[in-house]
């Protein structure tokens, strides 16, 4: 019997603004790859406010709606004895390109870098609605161990009420790592 093989997915051409296209070209990221992984373009937020100030004094910016809901959510968590903090919020397209350049300079291949970082233009952090959440108790930020914290359990149960959802569960279709710390606010989910 003849074995048939599934056709490889044919990427459809993607549409993206000239600024993004130029950055992708300079990083040698092919638009086919973006189409094949079904990555979503996230335009930079137009209006940002300070949602929280980190222990290091860093200002974490979100859209006004996301910031308001974050404050409500973190206060609600705290009233239940659970500390949730923002480790990272809005990030510009240029900053994302810098991050990728730095990783390439460390000798990682583009393939490897794109498993852990979004191409510029395609990070949810550009939207001003995405946050990387940390907690207290000595849990390293941006590590899968975050899943075992009270903060994660609290978010899993309650974040939906505030319009926040986990963006990258295990085996997500975009090919990113499972990111239990990465949550995104969508007004329609409230």
């Amino acid at each position, binding site marked *: 019997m003849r074995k048939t093989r599934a056709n490889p997915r044919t990427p459809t051409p993607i549409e993206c603004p000239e600024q993004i296209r130029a950055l992708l070209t300079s990083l040698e990221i092919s638009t086919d790859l973006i189409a094949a992984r079904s990555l979503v373009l996230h335009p930079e937020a137009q209006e940002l406010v300070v949602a929280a100030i980190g222990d290091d004094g860093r200002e974490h910016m979100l859209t006004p709606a996301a910031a308001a809901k974050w404050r409500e959510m973190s206060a609600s968590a705290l009233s239940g004895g659970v500390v949730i903090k923002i480790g990272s919020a809005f990030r510009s397209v240029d900053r994302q390109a810098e991050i990728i350049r730095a990783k390439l300079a460390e000798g990682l291949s583009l393939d*490897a870098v794109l498993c852990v970082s979004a191409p510029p233009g395609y990070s949810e952090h550009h939207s001003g609605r995405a946050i990387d959440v940390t907690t207290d108790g000595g849990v390293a930020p941006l590590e899968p161990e975050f899943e075992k914290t009270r903060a994660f359990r609290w978010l899993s149960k309650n974040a939906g009420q505030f319009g926040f959802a986990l963006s990258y569960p295990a085996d997500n279709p975009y090919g990113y790592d499972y990111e239990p710390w990465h949550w995104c606010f969508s007004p329609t989910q409230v």
Partner: protein
Amino acid sequence: MFLATIAYELSSAYWGRGLARQAVEAMIAELVAHYRVRSLSSVLKRGNFRSMRLLERLGFSLASPEQHVKHQVEPGELLMVREIQRI
């Protein structure tokens, strides 16, 4: 997340040409891209300055005393680590 251990050995006739660096770099890229390795560690003999320099060039840094204990590093050896940051 997966743990990978790699070791390398290169004939002294080929030292000084950047071959070890290229080989280890390629191996790391493969482990990160296709095996979900995000945390790298390397154990070397204290005083092996060539290896230490190579690992530093590859983005590794000396681990904390606590990490040395956790990895059961023997006296006379050093632990160097590199995390692939998800961002």
